[in-house]
């Protein structure tokens, strides 16, 4: 029998972990001589206090949804895709090529085309380590990490030597044509009478990310392929017995994972920057790992965790802007959240399980 009721498992454990991370972060802030309560207020104000703040929070969250889903899908097959960063970079290349070289008549078609190309580029970038794992036994953690570096180098080369417009000084592509500029949340919400900040980068990609959450949920829990992916993840020996091919599942899970990571580029490259710049991903591929961990690889959990990390990103930026708390401290706070929700999960879980057991015994 399960020791804890499901709600405690999915809600209470992460919540307590989060609280512990917050308390410890508060102590750190206190230690450098700042007021933690004021800092928290500033973060909340900055990230959630205005539609401008929300616009940034949701923009970051969109990135993390894509990369979080990517890590989750692979993790259901017990594959650690650490390469979300590189796959998202390649996705950016796909988006740039789609936007620069195909004359789209309308942004919606452009978006579809960009999704396909971004997904394809990300998928290819994940497929190589997947193939090496499936056929040669090279550990996917190592190869995906290495592929992040290769991706960065490829992007560097492409931006400096191939895609940089003549005469431009910075390693970036030309701006995308007007036709493929994605509508921001301001543009989407204005017709229905909601005024949303015009300056914030959140855009229609958020909706794509939410649709992706739903599709991933359907894939994992409602389709035969998802059933096979989870079965393989739980027990490779049982999967073999059932006739599920480990090679096939490894390849497919990683291709889907890579495609999801690649699709992040429609948000940051197409939706925000509207051109491809160096280091466009800003570590979102790695945050995806934390998001998936915290979200227990469930799309709903990923959705919520992505918004939390979006809040931390945006709130942290505000903190750095308005106080003498250094930007590095934001990284510390994020690290604490990851540490408590991911790595120290059992520290909270064990005592909770004991409490629930004791409660149940009394109930009997």
């Amino acid at each position, binding site marked *: 029998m399960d020791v804890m009721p499901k709600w405690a498992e999915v809600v209470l454990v992460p919540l307590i972990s989060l609280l512990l991370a917050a308390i410890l972060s508060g102590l750190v802030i206190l230690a450098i001589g700042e007021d933690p309560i004021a800092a928290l207020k500033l973060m909340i104000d900055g990230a959630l206090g205005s539609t401008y703040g929300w616009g940034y929070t949701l923009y970051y969250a969109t990135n993390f949804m894509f990369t979080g889903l990517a890590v989750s899908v692979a993790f259901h097959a017990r594959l650690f895709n650490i390469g979300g960063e590189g796959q998202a970079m390649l996705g950016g290349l796909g988006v740039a090529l789609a936007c620069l070289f195909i004359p789209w008549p309308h942004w919606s078609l452009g978006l579809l085309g960009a999704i396909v190309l971004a997904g394809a580029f990300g998928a290819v970038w994940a497929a190589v380590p997947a193939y090496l794992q499936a056929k040669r036994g090279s550990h996917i953690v190592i190869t995906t990490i290495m592929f992040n570096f290769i991706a960065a180098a490829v992007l560097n080369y492409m931006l400096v030597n191939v895609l940089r417009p003549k005469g431009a000084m910075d390693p970036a592509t030309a701006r995308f044509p007007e036709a493929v500029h994605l509508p921001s949340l301001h543009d989407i919400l204005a017709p229905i009478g909601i005024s949303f900040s015009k300056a914030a980068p959140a855009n229609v990609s958020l909706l794509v990310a939410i649709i992706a959450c739903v599709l991933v949920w359907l894939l994992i829990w409602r389709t035969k392929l998802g059933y096979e992916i*989870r*079965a393989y993840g739980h027990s490779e*020996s*049982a999967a*073999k017995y059932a*006739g599920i091919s480990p090679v096939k599942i490894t390849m497919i899970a990683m291709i889907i994972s890579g495609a999801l990571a690649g699709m992040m580029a429609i948000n940051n490259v197409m939706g925000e920057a509207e051109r491809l710049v160096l280091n466009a991903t800003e570590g979102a591929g790695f945050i995806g790992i934390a998001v998936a961990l915290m979200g227990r690889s469930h799309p709903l959990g990923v959705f919520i965790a992505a918004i939390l990390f979006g809040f931390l990103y945006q709130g942290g930026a505000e903190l750095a802007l308005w106080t003498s708390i250094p930007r590095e401290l934001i990284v510390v706070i994020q690290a604490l959240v990851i540490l408590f929700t991911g790595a120290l999960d059992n520290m909270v879980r064990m005592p909770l399980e004991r409490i629930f057991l004791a409660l149940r015994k009394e109930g009997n």
Partner: protein
Amino acid sequence: MTIDTTAPAIELKGISKAFGPVQANKDISIRVMPGTIHGIIGENGAGKSTLMSILYGFYKADKGDIFIGGQKTEIPDSQAAIASGIGMVFQHFKLVENFTVLENIILGAEDGRLLKPSLAKARKSLLELAAEYELNVDPDALIGEIGVGMQQRVEILKALYRQADILILDEPTGVLTPSEADQLFRILGRLREEGKTIILITHKLREIMEATDTVSVMRRGEMTATVKTADTSPEELAELMVGRKVLLHVDKNSPTLGDVVLDVQNLRVVDEQGVERLKSISLNVRAGEILGIAGVAGNGQSELLEVLGGYADGTGSVTLNNEAIDLTGKYSNGKTRRARGIAHVPEDRQREGLIMDYSAWENTAFGYHDDPAYQSGIFINNTAIRQDTEEKMARFDVRPPNPHLSAKNFSGGNQQKIVLAREIERNPDLLLIGQPTRGVDIGAIEFIHQQIVALRDQGKAILLVSVELEEILSLSDRVAVMFDGRIMGERAVGETNEKELGLMMAGVET
């Protein structure tokens, strides 16, 4: 240590131990007299291993006291157990394969920082022990190169070297041939004569009857009875273990044989290390027949099931109903085998037959999840699978009949019933079944055996692999014995006996 012969060697008083909501041991009291062999028998999960782990210091009892030689003793860890003269021989040996016998014996009991004096001392006492208890082993042989029977002797010697007066043996015959088991019981008898006390944990009634002086029966964490072995019978013990009368023998009619369903010719399997696991095996199974494959674990039976089940590659020729089956390549996998009418209840249901974290209904679809009845459009039809599962659970009396419960939350017997229901209800032409009752409670064994026989009576072919010779003899119509990747011989069940089969299992040509 002086032993007061009138006091019990071990006395446990009111031992209780709970793991979360599970009460593994409930107020257990037991007295083991010195110089006796005391059997502890019970089904899986009855609490035998927990009780012994408490005695050996692996777990701390929630309540209760331990008396050794009449003195109250605390056993916080295995060091303390050893110091109190308790030695344990585990079911899975704790030996270092590439160390010699001698090195294994001193492992953890070295006298100083230098190895040489310890080894010399151990060699001397090993020779003494060998002479005293007729426990001959070559001190310089590598563990990996001696047989399991010998390895077990090393385990016993390890305990004796640490001056154990009380030996606990946990399911010691699981890996032994019948003749090796007999040898073990002779050694145990010899140890008893020398005044050692032996606790024998087993689920095999026959061993209890053969080897012990006293027997304690456990059921669901409680000690239900302690009786003199001479005053009891296997039937009575079985009833005490299960809590109701059980049929120890399978009732079956003589077989009505049909055509050859499975025909295997010159089947070879070479594993990844290049070791030949199956050495040109030929056999056949007819419709309406159970062919039992006897043998000590690890002699190629698993590989036979794997290659027939489609998840290991082999060479040779295998036909089902006179049509060839691919043994390698794209079309050799569990799915294609099932499509051809081969069902497979694997030897290890926890690693292969089930996904322990999947619910019962997800497991019921496992391997058959391509079935059109389980689909609706591009999605899996969960409702249809659940309904099917509920029906199967009812027909196979799976308890609790809750399709949403994870496989890991069912008992061994009920897990096996879930697998069996899935495979048998598909109406296969051939059923491959490995260790059908391993880790299954006696009550469920009866049911599982009946299902296997019923399938045979429907005219299906059944290939049964089991390391329990008794099970092979009571279920099969024909027996083939495997040794070292070969078939040593085949016998009709009526024309052979345990002794002959036991010799064949040990590799003796008969």
